[in-house]
């Protein structure tokens, strides 16, 4: 292990010679070794011990989530700490948090693709998987918070027993269309990207079960160049469609707040502020997952220090955008001259939820500043710590926006405070369990690096006869 690490560092000159660009895949690899490394994870008899430990915890938490959801539905929304006027609490905080996490995957796969950022190929697959699982967690919360979930279909424009149609002027309905579309398109994008790699796993399969399972999932892909031609065109089209889509989704989520009349929510800065926050939180989650995965599964040649460093820079940039939005919110509340608006912001920073506000500021604005230092950007432990902080901070951002505004509206006689119950706490923990359960199963059974895409950006093998 020691020798391998030293050798790897000496071959990756990112940190020593700034004039030379770090390679996208560390030298000493060829097409076959990439396949061996990535497929080896899926083909191994047993995953690493850490996988079992993580899966055990995650699966237990998922069971807790199931119990909490059953308890909620069988008893009623009263098991949560919601009240009037705080009718949104952990549920919508968690929804916005998870949808935000889900933005990094499509950003990496679509926007960085259009900008020809070739380094994306090492990380796009599992970032996309993370997106799918985060959006599943997100969709669950509005699903369960409505109370009578058996009437859920009323939100869709379907004929129903009331002979009524949904109100298309409601941002909550826009949200249904936005997140639903985002999930469907992300799923297509992820699966389509995986087809050639599943075919690789199929072609290496040694047992009948694997041949059939991966054979069906690969849809008979045979690497035909006539297929590749249409495939690449479809990929480009999907990237072009997903780029405005990813920006629209969190914009529309922010409309849930911005189109209301409540002080602290009714702000035009919300759409860009939410999108920047979503990318910030999403990249933090990608880093949080990438740092342990690349060392557990021996993928340090493919997910190189350069990848981590680039993501840290994105985290720094989006973190400062978020910090700027926090500052501008305060400025506008003073500049508008609206007393209700001014009060809400003073209350955020110094009222009963000040501890949540300052946790958010510390985690989201202060901690990413360490990434100005190259040494911090190349230290996986520091990266992991900051990414964890940012995840906490982004969760608190949504909590602060939702709860401080709702608990203190225009009329002091209707003020109230909100304390979550144990059911809400365990539901939040359970949603992490669900996320990690799905993610760990993905790591075990599907290729976690886009092999075909990584091979396409590797230098072509030299022609032995010609040289």
């Amino acid at each position, binding site marked *: 292990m020691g020798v391998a690490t030293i050798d790897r560092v000496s071959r990756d000159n990112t940190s020593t010679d700034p004039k030379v660009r770090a390679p996208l895949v560390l030298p000493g690899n*060829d*097409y*076959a070794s990439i*396949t061996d490394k990535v497929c080896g994870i899926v083909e191994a008899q047993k995953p690493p011990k850490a996988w079992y430990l993580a899966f055990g915890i995650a699966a237990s938490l998922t069971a807790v989530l199931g119990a909490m959801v059953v308890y909620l539905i069988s008893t009623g929304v009263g098991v949560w700490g919601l009240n009037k006027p705080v009718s949104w609490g952990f549920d919508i905080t968690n929804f916005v948090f998870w949808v935000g996490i889900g933005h990094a995957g499509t950003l990496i796969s679509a926007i960085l693709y259009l900008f020809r950022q070739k380094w994306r190929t090492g990380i796009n697959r599992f970032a996309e998987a993370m997106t799918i699982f985060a959006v599943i967690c997100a969709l669950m919360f509005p699903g369960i918070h409505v109370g009578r979930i058996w009437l859920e279909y009323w939100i869709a*424009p379907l004929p129903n027993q009331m*002979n009524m*149609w*949904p*109100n*298309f*002027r409601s*941002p909550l*309905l*826009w949200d249904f*269309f*936005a997140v*639903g*579309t985002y999930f*469907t398109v992300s799923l*297509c*994008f992820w699966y*389509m990207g995986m087809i050639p790699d599943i075919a*690789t796993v199929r*072609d*290496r399969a040694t047992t009948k079960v694997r041949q059939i399972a991966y*054979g*069906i999932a690969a*849809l*008979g*892909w*045979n*690497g*035909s*160049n*006539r*297929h*590749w*031609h*249409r*495939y*690449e*065109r*479809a990929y480009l*089209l*999907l990237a072009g*469609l*997903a780029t405005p*889509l990813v920006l*629209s989704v969190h914009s*529309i989520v922010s409309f849930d707040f911005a189109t209301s009349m409540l002080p602290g929510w009714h702000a035009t800065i919300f759409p860009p502020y939410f999108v920047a926050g979503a990318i910030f939180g999403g990249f933090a989650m990608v880093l949080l997952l990438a740092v342990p995965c690349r060392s557990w599964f021996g993928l340090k040649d493919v997910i190189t220090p350069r990848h981590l460093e680039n993501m840290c820079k994105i985290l720094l940039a989006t973190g400062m955008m978020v910090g700027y939005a926090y500052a501008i919110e305060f400025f506008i509340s003073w500049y508008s001259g609206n007393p209700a608006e001014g009060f809400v912001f003073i209350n955020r920073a110094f009222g009963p939820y000040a501890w949540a506000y300052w946790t958010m500021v510390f985690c989201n604005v202060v901690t990413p500043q360490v990434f100005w230092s190259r040494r911090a950007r190349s230290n996986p432990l520091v990266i992991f710590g900051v990414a964890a902080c940012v995840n906490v901070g982004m969760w608190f951002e949504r909590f602060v926006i939702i709860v401080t505004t709702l608990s203190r509206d225009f009329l002091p006689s209707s003020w109230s405070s909100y304390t979550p119950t144990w059911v809400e706490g365990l539901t939040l923990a359970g949603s992490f369990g669900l996320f990690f359960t799905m993610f760990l199963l993905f790591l075990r059974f599907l290729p976690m690096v886009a092999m*075909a*895409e990584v*091979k*396409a950006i590797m230098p*072509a*093998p*030299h*022609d*032995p*006869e010609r040289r």
Partner: protein
Amino acid sequence: MTAKPADERKLWGLLAEFATPHDLVRAAARVRDAGYTKWDAHTPFPVHGLDGAMGIRPTRLPYLVLGAGMIGTASALLMQWWMNAVDYPLIISGKPFNSLPADIPVTFELTVLLASLTAFIGMLALNALPRFHHPLFRNAAFRRATTDAFFLAIEATDPRFDPAETERLLVAERATRVLPVQE
């Protein structure tokens, strides 16, 4: 159905392997110039320049996607107009029944949804996938086509196909080996 021995089955075509993507691109250009029509290259990743060398005409997928996107836009606008302004007019804060600005988010999402699904399903349909059986899959060497091998396959039904002549062409183009593939 009992499987016949390999040599009794009909010849499907010839499979040539090349050492590098560069060799494959050059051979593809030569095979195209020789007038073959029923042939294909099989590679683990999309090889740069191969589309041009093979003379593949641009796919019509973008037009399908454009059409689907426009259907999405039109159907979303019609749906919202009919549901909220005609069939069940909802009075919401004094706004007009048919209010275009409020219809834009759902219209945008349905446009993207239909266009994206068409890009994905259209790509599969134009590629005639899923297709779980293919004569090439019988060949053990072909399994490396999804890992690190670069293949060129010419079908026996091609009008210019001649087992000996075609093999000579492929060998002359520096194929590392040429294998017969049975149906």
